[in-house]
């Protein structure tokens, strides 16, 4: 990663797949005709340009549906998982508002879910934000206890984007069915990586993101169950496209890309999962065997292996990212967020504040190589050791001082 002057300049290794993924070449291939010759509006009924775009769009819809075990009539294209989350939460809440005013979600959801809930609170809805255990999973008993007679929706993400933990979706689906409450899950980080079946898991609404599964940016989908029927108030008004739930011209090339990404993911899922698990195990084992005082955030077992969040005690996250300049990574540290607050997800799992400032997220994906993992590990070990040599906290701990006993100054 030298400074970008184009040309021969080396670019950093990409280890930030939770943030976004590159387009799979097969996905690009599928999109190109619709970015060039086949540019018709898929809602144009009167000519071949429209018909061929419509056919491509419907094929993509089936590909998305197949990946999740749904009927293609239950898949609505959107601009991404953020829009899908907004639709699910606000749409369902508002549709049923005459009789139902309560929503249940968790403290570790993506910002768009939390912010949609906050927004509904200003409209007079009540929201329960379930805490999570130290391992990042919700307590099913607490979920049971949270239901109220007027609960309309439960929203719990499948795989967390910061720490990779996998919620007990099967169990949550069962509980929601028993209470006759709709179950929405933000599956942006799960689709195409672990098997997700909307019937098996009793899911009623699901958010899907294109650019997390080697598809294009700017497109996603929402799954909306037809039996039993889930109604929702549309966010976007217009010509009634997408069953009236999401007006606007469906962007054929993007939809085609999303469909292709889903089909490719379905084919590659088992192979990818096995390879990524091996690489993840390699990364974690090597780092933890060489460097003491490293904590993995989130449950060791109930997780998606390709998202690894580690806290390196006594070393601040952003300084480590700066030191690892040849690798593209991200951190739960305050310095790397717009506010100076460390990650709310790490806070929710009870991470001590100083450890929250010391976290790095490693993303391993379909195209990550063993060499890239080994290079990252080697550099990480080297720079953690170096930064610890520069750390007054490490020095104090080596001298036997209990950091918790110190009265720190505030600025």
């Amino acid at each position, binding site marked *: *990663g030298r*400074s*970008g002057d184009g040309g021969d300049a080396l670019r950093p290794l990409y280890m930030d797949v939770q943030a976004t993924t590159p387009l799979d070449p097969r996905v690009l291939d599928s999109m190109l005709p619709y970015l060039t010759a086949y540019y018709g509006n898929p809602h144009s009924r009167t000519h071949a340009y429209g018909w061929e775009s419509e056919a491509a769009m419907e094929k993509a819809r089936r590909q998305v549906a197949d990946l999740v075990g749904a009927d293609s009539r239950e898949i609505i294209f959107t601009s991404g998982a953020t829009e899908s989350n907004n639709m699910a939460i606000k749409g369902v809440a508002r549709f049923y508002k005459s009789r139902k005013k309560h929503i249940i979600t968790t403290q570790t959801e993506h910002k768009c879910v939390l912010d949609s809930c906050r927004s509904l609170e200003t409209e007079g809805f009540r929201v329960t934000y379930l805490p999570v255990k130290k391992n990042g999973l919700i307590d099913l008993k607490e979920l049971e206890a949270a239901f109220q007679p007027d609960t309309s929706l439960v929203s719990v993400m499948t795989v967390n984007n910061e720490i990779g933990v996998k919620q007990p979706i099967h169990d949550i689906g069962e509980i929601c069915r028993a209470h006759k409450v709709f179950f929405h899950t933000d599956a942006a980080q799960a689709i195409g990586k672990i098997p997700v079946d909307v019937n098996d898991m009793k899911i009623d609404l699901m958010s899907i993101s294109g650019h997390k599964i080697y598809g294009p940016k700017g497109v996603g989908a929402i799954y909306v169950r037809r039996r039993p029927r889930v109604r929702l108030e549309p966010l976007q008004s217009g010509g009634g496209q997408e069953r009236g739930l999401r007006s606007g011209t469906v962007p054929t090339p993007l939809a085609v890309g999303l469909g292709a990404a889903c089909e490719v993911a379905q084919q590659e899922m088992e192979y990818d999962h096995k390879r990524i698990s091996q690489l993840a195990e390699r990364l974690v084992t090597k780092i933890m065997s060489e460097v003491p005082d490293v904590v993995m955030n989130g449950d060791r077992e109930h997780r998606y292996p390709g998202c690894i969040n580690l806290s390196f005690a*006594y*070393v*601040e996250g*952003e*300084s480590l990212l*700066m*030191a690892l*300049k040849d690798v593209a990574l991200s951190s739960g*540290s*305050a*310095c790397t967020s717009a506010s*100076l607050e*460390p990650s709310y997800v790490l806070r929710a799992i009870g991470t001590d*504040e*100083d450890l929250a*400032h010391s976290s790095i997220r490693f993303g391993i994906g379909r195209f990550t190589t063993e060499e890239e993992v080994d290079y990252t590990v080697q550099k990480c070990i080297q720079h953690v050791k170096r930064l610890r*040599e*520069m*750390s*007054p*906290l*490490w*020095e104090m701990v080596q001298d036997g001082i209990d*950091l918790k006993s110190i009265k*720190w*100054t*505030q*600025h």
Partner: protein
Amino acid sequence: VAVGDAVPWQVVDHYENPRNVGSLDRNAKNVGTGLVGAPACGDVMKLQVEVDENGRIVDARFKTFGCGSAIASSSLATEWVKGKTVDEALKIKNTDIAKELCLPPVKLHCSMLAEDAIKAALADYKLKQDPNKEESEKKA
């Protein structure tokens, strides 16, 4: 590489070519130690100065837990205090540190903490030279 959030090279330089990382003997009478910040805030700086019999700072060391800008700010602080008298060093301002390192607005607090670290180290040194003065001031 996008210009916007890229770390200024001045900041990276202090990490890649460290100056004055380390420790002085905190028990020595002519060494002042300042420890500022808090792990919960993601910023802790330890800055030490060694002062000669003429009141001139002859050596300085730092250790920092913090982002690149925090490391660079404290590193630069140790460079600047060397050769200055205690009173001259007290005049070092965070704005000068921030300007030298091209710190963006969101990182200004790092330079402020570095200024605090200098002051804390010098206050500790002064206290060691004249502990009775502090005692009588406390009683007053």
